[in-house]
């Protein structure tokens, strides 16, 4: 007589167990990935730290390496390179996560894909002596040190490339940070080191070499000139030399730096206009060529697309549509044109490399723990979709190169001269209200191309005065002088 009730209670019990089974499946199968990679779940972390993470090497020296240590997390990350390489290596922190190459090359440094790590494979558990791959960088330690020394006390960034291979020889942004204290196994020590970094007005965590864009100022005249040379003009083409260029459709006309005309006569050649960085001529060119040609040339040189690189590079940009006043402003690198130091170094490198745009790279080779080569970076041109690696003809590139050499020999870039070396360059001083952004981009022989930016220079500073000497110091170091 109680049979019916017992049956109902049993059914209810089975239903409850059914809920448990269904829910258990959801957790173990559907939510498994989310749960196993949740930041508060230490399992993946512990497994990752059990592996001897590969070193990051510059020259012969490790700038990041793992040593065995006591505790749950079996290896500790050390950064002998300290702040000098802080933005390149990034940090490797169990609280903050990873940044820089530690993040970008994590799988190589661990020696296996993360998916494998997250799996419960028996061989993973019973092979305690795992080690990751070693990453060798293209950085020239002398050039990197020279960049840091030259930027000492200033906010700014330097990028130096091998113009023919795209190998990054120096990439330094000041201020920088030491990843070591952020990568300890002590949570409160990490927080203590982290807080001043995020509180600082100078934002030391920002890698200004690649992660931020600045108005390129007169260094953009290289691209305006390239467009001009491609459209029926030569370095000798004469332009009216005027103190003020009357920009169509607007009251805000464009004058020259410091006021006055650019030369002595009624006209001035394109090459001379480049040499003395004549705003009126390049603003006029912007209007004459038209926005479309300017935009096209800038995009061919890498604007509106980020270069492929091991680390994320910000998009250098030029507006896709511009009226005449905008074209005039953009032609001299003002208004809405923005560029990273990396982008401008690539532009300078193309001038030294016969008009060929190189793909920048930071990693020379990756080796497994036994020392054998896993991967080697082959130099390549930045070909991409509708953009050819050959940006302008060799002839135009040679003309631009000569114009840049003139700038250094007898123009605004004299402070970049190096005895016995052919140095070319272009200065830039962008006035966007507040402190000016000053630039120098250039090259020395076919050995090194460089871009220097100081985004908050002194009120009277110019690219020639402040940025050119920094570029020279870095180029000298890269040339082994």
């Amino acid at each position: 007589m109680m049979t019916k009730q017992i049956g109902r209670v049993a059914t209810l019990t089975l239903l409850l167990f059914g809920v448990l089974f269904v829910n258990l499946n959801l957790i173990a199968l559907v939510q498994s990935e989310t749960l196993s990679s949740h930041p508060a779940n230490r399992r993946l972390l512990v497994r990752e730290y059990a592996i001897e993470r590969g070193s990051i090497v510059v020259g012969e020296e490790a700038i990041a390496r793992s040593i065995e240590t006591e505790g749950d997390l079996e290896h500790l990350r050390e950064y002998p390179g300290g702040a000098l390489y802080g933005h390149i290596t990034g940090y490797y922190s169990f609280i903050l996560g990873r940044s820089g190459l530690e993040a970008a090359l994590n799988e190589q440094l661990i020696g296996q894909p993360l998916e494998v790590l997250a799996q419960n494979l028996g061989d993973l558990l019973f092979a305690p002596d795992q080690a990751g791959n070693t990453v060798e960088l293209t950085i020239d330690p002398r050039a990197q040190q020279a960049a840091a020394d030259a930027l000492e006390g200033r906010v700014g960034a330097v990028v130096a490339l091998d113009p023919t291979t795209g190998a990054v020889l120096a990439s330094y942004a000041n201020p920088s940070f030491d990843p070591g204290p952020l990568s300890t196994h002590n949570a409160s020590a990490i927080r203590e080191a982290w807080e001043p970094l995020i509180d600082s007005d100078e934002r030391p965590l920002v890698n200004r070499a690649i992660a931020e864009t600045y108005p390129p100022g007169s260094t953009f005249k290289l691209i305006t000139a390239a467009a001009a040379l491609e459209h029926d003009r030569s370095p000798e083409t004469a332009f009216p030399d005027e103190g003020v260029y009357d920009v169509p459709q607007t009251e805000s006309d464009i004058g020259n730096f410091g006021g006055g005309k650019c030369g002595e006569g009624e006209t001035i050649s394109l090459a001379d206009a480049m040499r003395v960085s004549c705003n009126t001529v390049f603003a006029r060119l912007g209007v004459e060529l038209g926005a479309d040609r300017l935009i096209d040339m800038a995009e061919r040189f890498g604007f509106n697309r980020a270069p492929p690189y091991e680390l994320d590079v910000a998009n250098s940009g030029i507006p896709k549509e511009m009226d005449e006043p905008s074209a005039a402003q953009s032609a001299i690198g003002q208004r809405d044109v923005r560029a990273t130091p990396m982008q401008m170094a690539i532009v300078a490198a193309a001038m030294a490399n016969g008009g060929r745009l190189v793909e920048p790279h930071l990693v020379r080779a990756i080796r497994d723990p036994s020392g054998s080569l896993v991967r080697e970076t082959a130099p390549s041109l930045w070909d991409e979709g509708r953009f050819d690696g050959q940006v302008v003809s060799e002839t135009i590139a040679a003309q631009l190169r000569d114009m840049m050499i003139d700038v250094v020999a007898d123009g605004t870039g004299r402070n970049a001269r190096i005895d016995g070396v052919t140095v070319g360059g272009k200065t830039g001083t962008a006035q966007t209200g507040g402190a000016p952004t000053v630039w120098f981009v250039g090259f020395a022989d076919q050995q090194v191309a460089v871009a220097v930016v100081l985004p908050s220079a002194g009120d009277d500073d110019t690219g020639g005065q402040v940025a050119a000497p920094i570029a020279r110091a870095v180029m000298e170091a890269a040339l082994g002088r």
Partner: protein
Amino acid sequence: MSAATGTAGRGVDRRTGNALRSTEARLLAFAVVITFAAHVLLGWSQGPEVPPSAIVTGVAMTVIAIVAHITVRTMAPDADPTLLPLAFLLNGLGLVFVRRVDLAAGSDLAGTQTVWTAVSVAGMCAVLVLIRQVRTLSRYQYSLGLLTLVLLILPLVPGLTAGPINGARLWIDLFGMRFQPGEVAKLTMVAFLAGYLERKRVLLSVASHRFGPLLMPAPRHLAPVLLATGVALVVMAGLRDLGSALLLFGVFLAVLYVATGRAAYPLFGLVAFAIGSTLAYQLFAHVRVRVSIWLDPWSQVSNAGYQLAQSLFALGTGGLTGAGLGGGRPQDVPFSATDAMFAVIGEELGLLGATAVLVAFLLLVVRGFKISLTARDEYGTLLALGLTATIALQTFVIVGGLTRVVPLTGITLPFMSYGGSSLLGNYVLIALLLRISDESRGAARGRQMERPRTGKSSR
């Protein structure tokens, strides 16, 4: 009695006691081998040698199994052959995982738990020897009811209490041993209920009063329901033991429903419980905390929600096949040897292993319901049902808690969690189920039963 014999015999295995006991012996051997193998595998995760603890535990489990088997064979030859092996399997796997936690924590709980296993099985044997007929228990039902209340209040008595542990007052210190009287209270409550309801069920089945849309019995008959609700809520608030409150109340409603056949009782009880719970939620901060963790553990993952989050991490990381024995991180999961053991099982044995363990519980529960259905008399039916519901609900509350089906409350996983009183209580529970099934099968086979002793004839 005549009504009872009507239910007896249906669906009863008609094999002889010998055949049943042989089946049981094979299943027991299987359980011992599986747990021994698991123990060896756990050892191999640490090094190439077979750990001495595996041998010691294996030998101990074999001896205990043989003793248990001989006892059942002589004292309850017609008892259900699957109960003991299932309990033994869960118990043995529990030992493996207690050992697993030891390895991570550097403790030695497994040794103690092995001793408790021996004690608990001895307790089971003692019950089988002492209680030849389960009906004899019904004579003491009021004593048992009183004992239930005393046991529940015991942890609050100064001088006995072990103080609040992890926020709950569940333990007493007796002769230098820590004991959880609530584990015994479960059993005494079920025994009391079975006896009380067997006598009152007819009275309680009569619905004479209309209460809204529900036809209810006279209000005075509802008094025990309200009393039980009150006790459950007092336990919840006073002992801060939400899990036990839910368990006791759920079992009470199940037995009441089966005894009376009136859905109004559990419905009324649920309404009362809902109102009481809402009040408790308003009044007690710890109840609110439990609920907020349940709703959203992730925003408080490093403090209040830590245990639940770690449990879910363990189960989620375990995935389908698990990290393997010894491959997980029980040190990350709070109370991994006791309440949260199921999370460790899920992490190391995966969904497959966790499901297997749940299936073992389910089989145990299904056998329990079957014993309830085929019991010789109504007392046996109600007792078996209450005991079975206890195991089922307790498993649901803790596994559901660890998997966020219900709010997580501290309660042991039957047979598996570390803890002596819990294990002893569970083996006594098994002893009672064995006894009830032995009686019904014995009767069905026409075995010469002892004449039911009444109060007069026994004294």
